[in-house]
């Protein structure tokens, strides 16, 4: 389970500190998909990075399966992030000099055994990237890049998947494919937090929140939970 309590985060602006997140609290259990919507600049990515242990809040806490992320040292937090949190970014953030297959494996530190290699190949197959295995990111379409990023996040079987505008740079069809894979992951018991400014392709099962003026507001709750 991922939860946050009284989460606040300020940024230094030209006219003094700007409060982006104001004492936010929410929970996402295993098998939940939470979609947080809001206009550009609302602080959606800031919230996501804070939930992912990459941006220390000014106050409040983030708990992952009962562990307060920011009570850990930076190195321990990095290890925990590596094992249990998957990221998918709007701009894909693939390593330009690695092939698709290597990008997927790059999510794991150190040596990679045969099981993981087979699992990576399975993900490539599943996500329709098998024929692109040895291509560099520059040779891929936007949809293929995002699916590669998704495969990288899925490979380590994280307990939480954090997706920042995962369909933001994709056409509706590719956006729907990405959301479908996130939905599949959720069905298998994963927790998915998605921040986005659009409404397209959001699965009906997702719980929707809206981030406005640094505060989370409930939009709607799906009635159909498996």
């Amino acid at each position, binding site marked *: 389970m991922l939860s946050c309590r009284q989460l606040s985060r300020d940024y230094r602006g030209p006219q003094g500190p700007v409060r982006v997140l104001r004492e936010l609290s929410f929970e996402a259990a295993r098998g939940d998909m939470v979609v947080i919507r809001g206009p550009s600049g609302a602080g959606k*990515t800031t919230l996501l990075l804070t939930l992912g242990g990459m941006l220390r809040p000014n106050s409040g806490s983030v708990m992952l399966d009962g562990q307060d992320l920011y009570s850990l040292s930076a190195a321990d937090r990095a290890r925990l992030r590596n094992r249990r949190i998957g990221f998918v*970014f709007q701009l894909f*953030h693939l390593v330009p*000099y690695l092939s698709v297959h*290597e990008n997927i494996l790059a999510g794991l530190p150190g040596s990679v055994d045969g099981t993981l290699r087979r699992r990576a190949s399975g993900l490539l197959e599943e996500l329709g990237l098998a024929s692109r295995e040895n291509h560099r990111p520059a040779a891929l379409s936007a949809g293929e890049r995002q699916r590669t990023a998704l495969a990288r996040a899925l490979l380590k079987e994280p307990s939480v998947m954090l997706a920042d*505008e995962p369909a933001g740079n994709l056409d509706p069809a590719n956006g729907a494919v990405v959301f479908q894979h996130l939905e599949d992951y959720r069905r298998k018991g994963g927790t998915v937090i998605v*921040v986005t400014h659009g409404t397209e392709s959001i699965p009906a099962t997702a719980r929707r929140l809206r981030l406005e003026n640094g505060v989370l507001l409930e939009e709607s709750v799906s009635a159909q939970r498996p």
Partner: protein
Amino acid sequence: MNVLQLIGRELGHRRLQAGLTLLGLTIAVALLTAVHLATGAAERETRRVMRDLGFNLRIVSRDTDPAFFWREGHSDRTLPESAVRTLAAQHGVFITFNHLTPTLERRLVIQGRDALITGLGASVIGPGEKKQPMGFVIPNGSLYLGATLARVLGAERGGTVTLSNRTFRVERVLTESGTEDDIRIFTSLSDAQSLLQLPGQISEIKAVDCLCLTPDQDPLGQIRKALASALPEATVFQVRHLAEARARQRRMSEHFTQFAVPLTLGAAALWTGLLMMLNVRERRAEIGLWRALGWGSPPIAALFLGRAVLLGAAAAILGWALGTGAALHWGPGLFPVTSGALAPDLGFLRLALVATPALAAAASFLPAMMAVAQDPADTLRAD
């Protein structure tokens, strides 16, 4: 995938940037290698030129008549050979004098021809110094012949010449110099003492001054003062034009090295640092990604410092090969006298293999620390 593999892939991906870094470091190593070899050659050349110019300090007995000395070219008085050891044993004597070489010189007649004979003893170059002795090192029973004298005696290299019923092997016939050396016989000091029946005696200690005094410091006055306390029975004459020529040669070589080495190292470090800074800036998103994937600071620093070390090692090998090639190609034109001694220096390659990666890593330290300190949220934040 480990850090080394990632570095390899990244170098292959950003070939231009990697190539420019490699080029800068390679040029620096090549320059330093060439300068190193050239400096060695210049020193040998200087030593050879100085030997040809001769010693610029001539220490003789105090009783020497200066008029006779300058007219005949040597002193008719003698000093005990032990005077060299006495002088060399004085504290600080090598601050003022160098290459103390005992000689015995006289005029003589061979087969009805006027000639000069000079016996050369081993140079005393000071405690712990490893300089090659100036002048010739002539084995007993051998001699060097001046060009004119060899011609009139009909002597050739490898042949023999008889002096006072003793047969000497002609070790070498000297090139014609246009000086009195053309009628000179060079022998070992002991042979000359034996031939001239002056055992244990020398006519002069030839030496080279330290070149550390400027003209306004009255170098000759200081040299005489030093000698007066070290060897009171002797006096010294300075051959000034030789001293100045020698000083010019030495200063030219030293100034070039003092200027070229720091400039080259500084330029290479600056170039590497700037390109590495560019590399870090270009890879901000990648650094953010590694952070998001759970990388700590050490592997991220290793990604950049390792890159610098690898490029430095490659540049060391390439630069050494290029610099050595350049020195071997152009060296003989620049240093015609000692060009035969120009050779690849593997010791310098070993030094380059340590120093160049270290320089590249030091120059990349700041950019690498910037990469480590970079807030991943800044690059990953898209809204």
